[in-house]
């Protein structure tokens, strides 16, 4: 019975770790998607600069918060470490992309390319899908 409980708690912890990583990636994907949409609307003249700047500011905080949520994750296997490290890398790239877009918009009065954001979002989505399949 004790072995069963230990096994269950191990499984439970693994599930919790994967859940936390998936949640962080979901938040990042949402933030990157919103950033791309906001830049797209600005480019089409449908959104104001103020709204786009605010969206990028809010989304940079959201990705940053997502990065911080994986800090306290305790890993119990090499596979989990690999997943955590991959998530950290993807989140860092996402954060950099949003910050770059935000700063580019603030510094230069011209349309900002969403390519960096899209690339970061693709990487996030790929990892997210892989973790969900492994679950």
């Amino acid at each position, binding site marked *: 019975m004790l072995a069963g409980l230990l096994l269950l708690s191990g499984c439970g912890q693994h599930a919790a770790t994967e859940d936390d990583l998936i949640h962080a990636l979901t*938040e990042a994907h949402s933030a990157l998607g919103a950033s791309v949409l906001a830049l797209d*609307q600005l480019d089409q*003249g449908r959104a104001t600069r103020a*709204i786009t*700047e*605010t*969206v990028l500011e*809010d989304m940079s905080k959201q990705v940053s918060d997502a990065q911080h949520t994986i800090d306290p994750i305790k890993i119990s296997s090499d596979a989990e470490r690999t997943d955590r490290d991959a998530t950290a890398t993807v989140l860092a790239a996402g954060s950099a992309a949003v910050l770059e877009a935000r700063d580019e918009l603030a510094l230069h009065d011209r349309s900002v390319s969403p390519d960096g954001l899209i690339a970061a979002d693709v990487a996030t989505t790929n990892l997210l899908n892989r973790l*969900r399949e492994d679950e």
Partner: protein
Amino acid sequence: MKKVLGLALGVLTAIGGFLDIGDLVTDAVVGSRFGLSLGWVVVVGVVGICIFAQMSGRVAAVSGRATFELIRERLGPRAGLANLGASFFINLMTLTAEVGGIALALQLASSVHYLLWVPLAAVAVWLVIWRVKFSIMENVAGLVGLALIGFAVALFLLGPDWGELGRQALQQAGLGSEKVSTYWYYAIALFGAAMTPYEVFFFSSGAVEEGWTAKDLAQSRANVLVGFPLGGVLSLAIAGCAAVVLLPQLIAVTSLSQVMLPVAVAGGKLLVAVIIIGVVAATFGAALETTLSAGYTIAQFFGWPWGKFRAPARAARFHLLMIICLIVGVGVLMTGIDPVQVTELSVVFSAVALPLTYLPILIVANDPEYMGRFVNSRLMNAAALVYLVIILVASLSAIPLMIITGAGR
């Protein structure tokens, strides 16, 4: 003709004044995560607030006294104090969220960081309460709040697949990657957003402020039974806009700025500008109401002079209390806490406190000593009892679901 215009004004004000930051944010969040599958909660919430607001207005019009004055008298100081404690705390959270909402909306219009707007918003709220007549204050906020009809326009312009929205509303669509517990957590949040306690306190105290009598019951009924449901339609429109634009892209709303994106897609800068005006008006109006509610509840419980119909010098403690509440709200916001998170928590805690708020109203509305022949009808009591059960279930489930879901994550 004057009567018809007065009726129309009341209804329009009720529509425009229905939404606040809690509704705006929660509707958009659920739309972006669950589509319209939680639309039924808006309907249930609107019916509930109609029942209790109508009851509360009738109590004030017939007895000439506001809800909290009667609660203490009818239920005794202990029960009244428990009610006061819960209601005041929720009210203060809601006030904080509304002032934050004003600041966030102004940031969207100006690019100036919302923290710089917070103190200015609070001062503006105080100034309006201090100097502007009650009816003007209420009517202007309500009428300008009608700009939120822009959400209904946006939904129409988006040209959605109405069949798909209908399937979501009838829950024939799946939850996607969302968990059932999260679905019910947001059901309770949406219910709490529709039935926030301050609406009832403000409605009843407002009836006394404006000197309503039994002759005004028809106006009160029209405001509630026509205005609130139409306001509820706007709630569904906000959720619908998020469902059409954000849900397919898996963009979950976490900020007020994201709420504007579907509007931009639908109608461009002009519609966005109209909506921002509406959001400022709605949150400003709600900030006025929650600030006044804070003053009403405490002053009425302790028997202090209260009301804008009295000169400030004659209701000094009432006005001082409101100033203190605004300062507390500003202080909380200036710590940098996310106003949207405060909003999300306030609607859930509203659901927790609902039984304490609504049961006393039901008791007083059935007391012939206060109501004479205007006591609740059997039908009204039947409906109110059904809602009391719903409210109890929501109240008991709110905190466990908050813990299980990690506040809806």
